[in-house]
């Protein structure tokens, strides 16, 4: 098995001076390819912060981070963009869909950014929307969809590029437990297909269905 995430001694704080908040205080984390990891922890413990660092959405203060063999220290903006596009499917707590685009174009975007033709992007995006159960809703804009449906569009966007690593920040947080369970089942299927999944949750029951649980508390990972 290859290592997909390798973090050593990561520090991250926000603000400066008096208002400085130390959020991560020396986090080390290794995730092997093919794992299904749940990150559990109280609100404000730094889960989302950690996830944003893993997904190259935010920058680390100190420590080392290697993703799929690439040390991300001091790389070009181009390379970061490329890693986000090819290696990571990020599902945000707040969905982060583009309001003026319909579901289809939102899902097509990662492929179009890769330089795919519009025809092939459309075919693949439609198939992915089909897979998350929104095959008939591709023309709708986010504001014409329910929260659960928007979540699925966001999942389809993370899946469409066939990235090896799926990062999900509380994908079930805003959903009822039945829909949440459906989404979880979906992740388990993806994991069975070989995708590495890192998922944040508040819910110990959801977390227990992952293969491994990492507990974050007070900016540190608690020993298992």
């Amino acid at each position, binding site marked *: 098995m290859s290592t997909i995430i390798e973090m050593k001694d990561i520090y991250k704080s926000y603000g400066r001076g008096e208002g400085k908040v130390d959020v991560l205080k020396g986090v080390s984390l290794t995730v092997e390819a093919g794992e299904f990891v749940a990150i559990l922890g109280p609100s404000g413990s730094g889960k989302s912060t950690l996830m*944003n660092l893993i*997904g*190259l*959405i*935010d*920058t680390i203060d100190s420590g080392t981070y290697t993703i799929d063999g690439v040390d991300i220290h001091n790389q070009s*903006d*181009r390379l970061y*963009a*490329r*890693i*986000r*596009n*090819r290696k990571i499917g*990020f599902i*945000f707590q707040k969905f*982060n*869909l*583009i*309001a*003026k*685009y319909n579901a289809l*174009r939102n899902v097509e*975007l*990662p492929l*179009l*950014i*890769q*330089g795919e*033709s*519009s025809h092939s992007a459309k075919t693949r995006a439609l198939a992915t929307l089909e897979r998350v159960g929104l095959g008939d809703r591709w023309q709708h804009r986010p504001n014409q969809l329910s929260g659960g449906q928007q979540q699925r569009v966001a999942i389809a*966007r993370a899946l469409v590029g066939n990235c090896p690593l799926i990062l999900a920040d509380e994908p079930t947080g805003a959903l009822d437990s039945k829909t949440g369970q459906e989404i979880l089942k979906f992740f388990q299927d993806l994991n069975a297909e070989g995708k590495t999944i890192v998922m944040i949750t508040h819910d110990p029951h959801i977390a227990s269905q992952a293969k491994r649980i990492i507990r974050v508390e007070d900016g540190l990972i608690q020993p298992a």
Partner: protein
Amino acid sequence: MRPVEILRSVFLSVTSNKFRVFLTSLGIIIGTFTIILVVGIGKAGEAQVADQYSRLSVESITIARARGSGVTTTAVLSKDEALAMPESLQNVESVGVSTRISSEIAAGAISTAVTIQGINEAYADITHLEPLYGTLFTDEDSLMRSRYAVLGYNVANYLFDGDIEAAIDQTVLIKGASFTVVGVLDRIGGSGGISTSVSADSTSADDMAFIPYDVAIKYTSGTTRSGVSSAAQVSFVALANDIDSVKPAITEIQEYIEDTIGSADVYSVTDAGSVLESAQATARTMSALLIAVAIIVLLVSGIGIMNVLMVAVQERTREIGILKSIGAARPVILAEFLLEATFISAFGGLLGAGLSAIAPWALSFTDISFMPSVDGILLGIGFSVITGIISGFYPAVKASGLKPIDALNYE
């Protein structure tokens, strides 16, 4: 990202919020329109000046009653004294005399207010009055007090309803007296095109009528309505032998006036070149002022454009954050926003330029004349499109430089 897909993103962006696009381009439309208008008005002013003086040769020297409070003497250079100059002055070849009256001129039922100049042959010669039809009257006609009239092109066109040639030998009424039209002048004005009306204030020969000096002078005797002595209404124009004798001729003329009436200050003696130059300088100053006004308008509309964009910037910054987080590189994002800003600005600029096509029509209801010019259109479109592009592009440059998380959380 393929260029066609970037274009599609721009298209979706523009069509998804037409109202925002409209608000954004409004400032650009107004800015472009104003600049074109202002440049056109300025150009028309300069062209008018050039027209007015195009009749003067560079060898000509105007001798006009000096204006201003400094002039106290009522001494006047008589016509005969002025016309005697070529004989006694070495560098002066001929002297023209003219006087102005304002009058109605009527042919049958049609009449219009017009400036009428009473002139001698030399004046017509020096100012290049050329008949298109018929002839000019002579100095003999003037001595005989023959009531002959020569009409400017626009005047004939107006009085005879377009049939200019028919004006010859017709009778027109000026100050209640009948005059026989002996000639119609060739058209001079380049800027205005053929005018269907006559401007009473115009100093273009197209808008004037000419009668013999000795006939005209009796209408100016006494004091005019405005209280200015009639002497002010008589002016002379001298022609120097050649361009090199203009300067010595001016000196000679000034000395001659001093010797004749005791003071040289009563008349200002200027050569055509400097008259034209100062008039053009005035027109240019006007243009510059007008352009300054246009730039202020554009700055104000630029602030308007900025403002509209600032309102949209939160939404757009989040969008840029999303694009970055799914792997769009900065150049792609910048290309998209640059194209969008260019598109909106070009749209506004062209619309503003299109709108300026109605300017000649709209201004025809006023006394302001307008001359469309490529310069004005390029300046108008160029300036406002650049303002639009900068104000549309700048927020994108800033936003795309943020970390994805900061762009996503932008408030």
